[in-house]
């Protein structure tokens, strides 16, 4: 057992854990951040996706000992108060969910995707999100939501850049 310092949603947190313990378990059970869901524990469904230094990562197969000083971002920190992140807003408006169990992970995967690929085509989205599973089958809507979020974020970015 060792003590780990983690940077979670902008705050420093400490936890006692084995180096091989999953980050998901720590987020959910030690920090009470249950928005990241347990789906498979194999890194195959993406329900547990969080950002590590801005890149999507499967927290269920991420060992806490490997996180180091990387900034961890979970679904709980995405909105600013009641103001939703554009990706959350896009998922909400397109109703890109049914049961919603995959939604946190899908949204986090999208935020990560748009950082490296701000204007993905439908094919890009299918390719880059292929390891995230929506068992209710709302994929066509998720693709729409990602496109909508991308358009809005690009508009925001360019207008901000113009100022």
């Amino acid at each position, binding site marked *: 057992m060792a003590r780990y310092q983690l940077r979670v949603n902008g705050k420093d947190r400490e936890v006692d854990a084995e180096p091989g313990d999953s980050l998901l378990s720590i987020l959910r059970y030690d920090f009470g951040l249950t928005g990241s869901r347990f789906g498979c524990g194999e890194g195959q469904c993406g329900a547990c996706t969080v950002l590590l230094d801005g890149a999507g990562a499967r927290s269920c197969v991420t060992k806490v000992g490997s996180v180091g000083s990387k900034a961890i971002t979970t*679904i709980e920190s995405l909105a600013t108060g009641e103001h939703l992140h554009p990706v*959350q807003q896009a998922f909400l408006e397109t109703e890109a969910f049914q049961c919603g169990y995959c939604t946190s992970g899908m949204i986090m995967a999208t935020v990560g995707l748009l950082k490296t690929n701000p204007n993905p085509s439908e094919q890009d*989205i299918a390719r880059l999100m292929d390891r995230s599973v929506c068992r209710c089958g709302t994929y066509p809507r998720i693709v729409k939501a990602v496109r909508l979020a991308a358009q809005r974020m690009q508009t925001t970015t360019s207008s901000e850049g113009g100022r």
Partner: protein
Amino acid sequence: MEPERYELSEPSRYTFTLERREFMRVFGGGLVVMVAAVDLLAQESGRGRAQGRGETPSLAAWLHIDEQGHVQVSTGKVEIGQNIRTSLAQTVSDELRVPISAIAMVMADTDKTPFDAGTFGSQTTPRMAPQLARAAATAREMLIDQAAARWQVDRGTLAARNGTIVASDGRTLSYGELTKGQALSGTVSAQPSLQPAAEWNVRGTSPGKVDGRDFVTGRHAYTPDVTRPGLMYGRIIRPEGYGGTLRRVDDGGAFAMAGVTVVRDGDFLGVVAPTERAAARAAAAIQATWNVPAGQPSSDTVYDYLKKNVDRAVAPAIEALPMPAGVVRTFDATYRIPYIAHVPLEPRAAVAEWQDGKLTVWTGTQRPFGVRTELSETFRIAEDKVRVIVPDMGSGYGGKHTGDAAIEAARLAKAANRPVKLVWTRAEEFAWAYFRPAGVIDIKSGVDANGRILGWAFDNWNSGNSGLQTPYDIPAASNVFHPSKSPLRQGSYRALAATANHYAREMHMDTMARALGIDALEFRFRHLKDARMRAVLTAVAEKSGWPKPSVAGRSLGIACGTEKAGYVATSAEVSKTPAGFKVERIVIAFECGAIVNPDGLKNQVEGSVVQALGGALFEAIDFADGQVRNGTMEQYRVPRFKDVPAIETILLDRRDIPSAGAGESSLIAVAPAIGSAVRGFGQVDTALPIRLLKA
């Protein structure tokens, strides 16, 4: 509707009785309308209302308006992702004339909601929604009566609008003002005036999911997210194979761990620990050996096994039905349907808490009251000492009818004398849940010299009887379901056996059309009188460009069917690939009567198509020696982004027909549409998933 063997697992043996005074004590005041379960049954059977028998009718639902005008509606139904929390609120909003935001749906809590057999069979929209509509209309009329009495005016001059009663001179009284200080209670009147579908205002529109924000923010608490003071964590140690009995346990390693309790009760073996990770470590430290029965069937031998192990021997239709005179050509086929898994992303889970002899369990199940009965029987306590609460679920697809995790968590909690959370691993979910039944379907058909089907014999071993009857107009038809002893645990699944039966039937229709040189659509039309089926077929044919695929070199297939009072036709366009084929485009037309929420319905139909792709293209449980051999998400492939073709959805809105449930039926014609399309490239295996044998 025909009873489906795997869905109606148990009759309800519980009657919820209601003390009205108690009710008013609980609510404080306002207005309550109760929906008696017998009302609906009596009306449906044309016997009128049961009255004067001096008994408290069992409740189906209730509706309460408090002194602020907030509306609470209680139903035992479960939100699984099918969006009934929203669609039922739309119904109440429409009839009660209040905004949806004023309505809170109280669902699936055995202490707070009336008995409900379960959320399955697409019954919420056709059965629960009309009951709530009548409750809301009754409440509305009671409020109009109240306002008429207060103002001393004729009730005919008053109207209900946006949470208020409005007089002809413009005076208004809000529902809250009308119910303030009151204790009004009513039961649904026999003939409340309901809005005809043509005049719906809120139904027929697509408000977003009522609590959608909770899902995009991660705030929604599913069962695995429920927490309790002093919560401990459990794990179960499973047998090494089906039917395994415990031979020997070495729990010394787990026993030595701080705070760990090992629970052994017969063949039940589990651990409780202070943290989730400690529970996993303790479970891993236990060395258990099991006796597993030898010689269990495998996924290769199961089909023979099912035919040899019928519950009772009934002559197969293909032997018993003589082909009528005039038959000049017969067609025989056998189709094999594998077991498939539901794979809900939220695994089975439960949080159980014993307090003063009462057991409370939060769990994901489609049958909260059924699970309450299971818990009551397992722990030999009265049902009123058990409360089952179902947080809106991370889906089920028919896979969560039972209370496995609830019972296990409760057993562990009892031993630990603390609340216990148990979340199944994905491996447990694959191996120890239940499956959609495997089956064998034999068909024999005969046509006359003009290609008209005169005889049709259809035997289904074990899959189930949903969708068994042919919708085609055939003079001599016999369809027989032969229940068998299933080597694997099996149960309900979205659309049940309708998917298997439609696959076999529609593939066989395609076989005959091809052999006779008749266009597959034309062949169906010649045998179809049902205008609703013809309408969905026509819609799909037009949109898909039947019989020509949209891209040269591709192949187009078509299929249709009806299930749970909905009608569906589907076309599939496939392309040839080096590995076989690829589904490029699906066109689906669906008609389920009057549409309550068009966008929600579209979501369900698209999702059904995607889910059906799995069973059509790659899902099958591989098992041998009492073990599942592909029980991981990596090995058991479910549809993913890249598998999804272009999906074009046509919804036919029939405001003149009562709404049918719509969460299941649109699965049924996907596989045969794909299978028949693939036949354009060569011979197709008669087993699911679909395989191109040779080009």
